[in-house]
């Protein structure tokens, strides 16, 4: 009675309010993220040595890798760092790299020095890629630098050895800025090869000063030359051959940023997408004979739909709509539109930024690292981006990260502000990795930002959804199983797809274990794995909510 009396007293407005109240749907509970970096003792902060003078590479700093270097079942973290400029040397410990060992209790131990990964002798570092290139069961690291690139071999005893010279992988044209790399087995010979995304030719001596009204700004990339990306073929025995020209990569000149590795056309061979900054993007389609054909035009991913090349930054290729074909997502700068491309049956890509609402959601953000990640375990991969402007020239230069939640594989909605204050932190965010740090089946995030300590964002994992993490161990294929394609069918018949890769976003390397969110589904009917060797392995009646290690059959 009282309720009706109040409604009546509200007069004309009351019915409208009443209708709204009745029509409102309860919001699905969303996990949120909490930064636990403060619980651990380490000194690393991303330091690009900005002291007033704006050197061109300073905008790119803070690569991150999530990998289990000691095989204790807990994913560890590695961060790259900048250098003193113009010396281009790590003259001070504040420029050193950082390896954090995951203790498994929510804290991390700085073991960089013991591991031999300080990188005192390196220049300015950008990206990092983790992968077991020698199939010894321990994850190795490749670092992209201004100056020589570096391959660290994991000795299996908590230490690493710089094997760059011996391996032959350090060879690259003089003064090239290498910014990102991806491990993959392009010829399916069971050994991981490496593709490196190069940006331009640069040294402190040729650095240009750009200014307007006396205020210096980071120069437009177009004043620096485009260069070829590089491909290194793993010969075995720890040696690599530079096959850039022989493979066909050498003829295409770009300004490389993020790399996404996937089998876009379903032919069993991994292809390469490279996001280029202010230059058209490249899609190198594997010709299955050791060569690649740059097919960005054919596939419709070279430009946006207006023929414009944007400042493409991070890149990731995963199947966001669960149709069995990996799709593509690259981010770029404020005022541009992030590219979401839907794979049309392995034949070409359709630009769907508009119909998926990504165009409207992304126009205010300057994205760097990115990726598809099913943060809420509902079975739909969401779109994450670490954000922050190139330069500090306006009120909204510092930006929060964004999470666009996947709505039934058709469109996305921005839920960034609902993921907690730590997620919403505004900064000049750069690198990012997806990783399950506490093995609870929910994806955590590690994000670097210029001038700051990294955020280690733990997923609250509290919405009750189920999951499966698959740790692939190759036998005839590469030990990591990178390139293996997984198809999961739930008891209800829902099919989910993913593949093994550590490369996503920009300058970063993620947890290699394949993650599936299952929503409310409590049973998996089958899990099919197509290994790079061609072997197809099917597991039936797989239990949910577990980390499942699957070893490739010997035959």
């Amino acid at each position: 009675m009282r309720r009706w009396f109040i409604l009546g007293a509200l007069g004309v407005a009351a019915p409208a309010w009443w209708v709204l109240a009745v029509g409102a749907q309860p919001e699905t509970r969303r996990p949120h993220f909490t930064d636990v970096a403060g619980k651990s003792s380490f000194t690393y902060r991303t330091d690009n040595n900005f002291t007033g003078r704006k050197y061109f590479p300073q905008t790119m700093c803070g690569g991150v890798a999530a990998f289990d270097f000691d095989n204790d079942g807990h994913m560890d973290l590695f961060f790259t760092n900048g250098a003193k400029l113009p010396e281009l040397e790590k003259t001070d410990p504040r420029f050193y790299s950082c390896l954090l060992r995951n203790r498994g209790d929510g804290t991390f131990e700085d073991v960089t020095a013991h591991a031999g990964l300080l990188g005192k002798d390196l220049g300015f570092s950008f990206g990092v890629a983790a992968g077991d290139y020698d199939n010894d069961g321990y994850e190795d690291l490749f670092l992209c630098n201004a100056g020589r690139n570096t391959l660290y071999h994991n000795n299996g005893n908590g230490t690493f050895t710089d094997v760059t010279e011996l391996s032959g992988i350090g060879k690259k044209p003089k003064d090239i800025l290498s910014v990102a790399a991806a491990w993959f087995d392009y010829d399916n010979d069971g050994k991981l090869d490496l593709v490196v995304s190069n940006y331009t030719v640069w040294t402190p001596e040729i650095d240009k000063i750009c200014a307007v009204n006396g205020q210096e700004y980071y120069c437009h990339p177009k004043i620096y030359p485009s260069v070829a990306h590089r491909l290194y073929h793993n010969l075995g025995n720890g040696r690599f051959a530079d096959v850039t020209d022989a493979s066909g990569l050498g003829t295409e000149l770009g300004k490389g940023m993020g790399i996404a590795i996937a089998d876009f056309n379903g032919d069993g061979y991994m292809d390469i997408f490279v996001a280029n900054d202010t230059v058209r993007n490249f899609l190198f389609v594997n010709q299955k004979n050791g060569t690649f054909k740059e097919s960005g035009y054919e596939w419709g991913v070279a430009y946006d739909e207006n023929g414009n090349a944007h400042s493409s930054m991070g890149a990731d290729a995963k199947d966001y709509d669960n149709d069995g074909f990996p799709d593509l997502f690259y981010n770029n700068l404020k005022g541009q539109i992030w590219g979401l491309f839907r794979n049309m049956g392995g034949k070409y890509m359709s630009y769907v930024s508009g119909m998926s609402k990504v165009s409207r959601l992304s126009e205010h953000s300057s994205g760097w690292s990115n990726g598809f990640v099913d943060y809420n375990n509902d079975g739909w991969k969401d779109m994450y981006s670490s954000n922050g402007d190139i330069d500090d020239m306006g009120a909204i230069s510092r930006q929060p990260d964004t999470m666009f939640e996947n709505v039934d594989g058709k469109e996305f909605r921005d839920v960034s502000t609902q993921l907690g204050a730590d997620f919403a932190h505004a900064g000049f965010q750069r690198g990012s990795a997806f990783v399950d740090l506490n093995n609870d089946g929910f994806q955590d995030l590690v994000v670097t930002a210029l001038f700051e300590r990294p955020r280690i964002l733990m997923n609250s994992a509290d919405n009750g959804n189920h999951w499966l993490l698959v740790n692939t161990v190759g036998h005839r294929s590469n030990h990591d199983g990178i390139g293996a394609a997984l198809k999961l069918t739930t008891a209800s018949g829902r099919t989910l797809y993913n593949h093994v890769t550590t490369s996503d976003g920009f300058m970063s390397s993620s947890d290699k274990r394949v993650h599936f969110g299952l929503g409310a589904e409590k049973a998996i009917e089958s899990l099919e794995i197509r290994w790079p060797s061609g072997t197809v392995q099917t597991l039936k009646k797989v239990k949910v909510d577990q980390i499942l290690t699957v070893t490739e059959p010997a035959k």
Partner: protein
Amino acid sequence: MSGLKTGANCARLDKLKHVPPRLGKTVAVFLVVACGLFGQSSDAVLQQAIALHQAGDLDGAIRAYREYLAVQPDSVQARSNLGAVLARAGRYDEAIAEYDIGLQKSPDNPALLMNLGLAYYKMGRHAEAAARFERAITLSPQFKEQVTLLLAVCYNNLGRYKDALALLAPLESDKAGDAGFDYLYGTALIGDGQGAAGTAVIKRILSKGESAEAYLLRGTLELTAHDRDGARADLEKAVVMNPRLPGAHARLGELLLVLGDSEPARAAFAQELALDPDEFTSNLNMGVLAKQDQGYVEARRYLERALRTRPNDPGVRYQMANVDLATGNLEPARLALEGMIKEAPDFAEAHASLATVYYRLKRSADGDRERAISEKLMDQRDSLAAGTKPR
């Protein structure tokens, strides 16, 4: 032939208001052939029609002219008069149809061409209007003075700023200070990239007090010079001072798009189109935004409207071709892009899109060729623009 006599002295100027803002004393005209020089056989119906027309009974006049034309279908004068009264009634489509019939009988009739041009002008179909005005002036140079400012408006709207300047610059010494003239002239100067001269004109307008037109011009200039804060302040002032000022909402919309505020930009374009459904910039940008949203039917509708205003605009045609490409209509896309490239061989984006079309049509060699051309053109353009501003 009817009993109507013909002759240049048979024309009377019937004043009609026109749309360009602040054109002051400028007068646009529909020419009404009605000076009463009828022969013995002159038709009472026609006289009645003219009388009704002059008395302002438009419906009655239309009925009477039509009645007369049913008997005398070849009467160019009656046809012209009917067009004029239809135009006066705002029934421009019908007026244009009557003028077109008249021009079939008398293709070089400058009065008919002028009237037809005015009808198109009133509809905002500036390309068609300009073509008729130009032809009328060629045939009868005495019309030039009457039509100069209208033609300049057309040229400005068509982006033919150099042509507008050719008409307006000789008039500056006489007309400087006339707000309408200054606005037109300033628009042409800024459109032509003559920022300094445009600024001088803006100062001249502002010296007579604040005006929305001056702020619109200055905002446009600032937008061109990448002074986004200045542009925003001036353009917002312009729309507040005169929300009905043609082009002001469209320019503000363009700025908002540059700033990455697509929702307010959409609203600004929508406001402009509420004032003038044929406004070019707003139709083009609404088309592009709709295309961006993959609303291809809507995009096509806006772009077609933009094309009606500027039939050969390469930007709009390119967007239309990309709608075809995106919707899998490869043949229409190919034809359109090939046509564009023939007209504008340096259109790098068109080459890029055409490369994709060829690849999708499995014409790899053609795709390779277009791709190479596109990349070469883009490289050349990049080398010219490199490092000029922060990104």
